[in-house]
């Protein structure tokens, strides 16, 4: 891998975590405690969200979370009763929206001049397959999250 590509991957990872932190801080009232190449959570994750994007750059984004994070984030977003919590359907809907927001925020940060079309988020249970590309494991205030972005190579 060339030095230029390595540098791009470092920048992508930085913007990916920055986008996730922005979304989690502002709309989910939580934060990232730790980030790294891997997280200490049991694999595979029970829930994964996929969003593909096209336009000035094509690729795919994936977000996986554990049950603790999914329930806590969905409850915070919807303001549901902490005792009863959100339903499984509500949790999937919120996780789809969370994946969509992190993906969109990442693209807006990393390619400010770009124009993209995002697919509707697809929620998959359990996590299926790994995606090549940039990857960050996050420990949240409640639970764990795994983020991946695949950037399709540009034709030469």
């Amino acid at each position, binding site marked *: 891998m060339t030095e230029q590509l390595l540098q791009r991957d470092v920048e992508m990872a930085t913007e990916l975590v920055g986008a996730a932190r*922005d*979304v989690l*801080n*502002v*709309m989910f009232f939580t934060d990232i405690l730790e980030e790294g190449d891997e997280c200490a959570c049991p694999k595979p994750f029970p829930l994964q969200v996929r969003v593909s994007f096209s336009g000035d750059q094509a690729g795919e984004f994936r977000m996986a979370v554990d049950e603790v994070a999914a329930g806590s984030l*969905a409850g915070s*977003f*919807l*303001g549901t009763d902490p005792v009863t919590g959100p339903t499984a359907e*509500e949790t999937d*809907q*919120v996780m*789809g*929206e969370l994946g*969509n*927001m992190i*993906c*969109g*925020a990442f*693209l*807006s940060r990393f*390619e*400010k*001049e*770009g*124009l*993209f*079309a*995002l697919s*509707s988020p697809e929620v998959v249970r359990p996590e299926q397959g790994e995606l090549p590309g940039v990857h960050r494991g996050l420990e949240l205030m409640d639970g764990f999250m795994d983020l991946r972005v695949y950037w399709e190579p540009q034709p030469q």
Partner: protein
Amino acid sequence: MQSLRILIVDDSPAMRAYVRRTVQLASLPVKNVFEAGNGLEALEVVAKENREPNKLDLIFADLNMPVMNGEEFVTKLREDERDAKVPILIISTDATQKRVMRLRELGAQGYISKPCQPEMIRLKVQQILGEE
């Protein structure tokens, strides 16, 4: 500010619930909230609910939706003289400069990129309705 009749257009029920709750938290005087899951459904709601004497005051719209996306919805709405003046506030994750410029050209009055705080929504709504 008068009591508002608003329409929230988003394919995500979770996001519609969030906007509805955010509008309430922002202490905006809302009288009626209508919802639609895409641009086509929104046009149907507008055809029914944006008629004298009960006009819509504001439409919150997402961009990335199936069937009819936000850009197509804004374009279609602006083609109809009766509905051309309803202010549209786009709330979307896509905050690239090209997208924002394109939406202004199409006739959207405001743009908020997600993530967004309730205060940001309140200020934008006041700005848009104050400009009318």
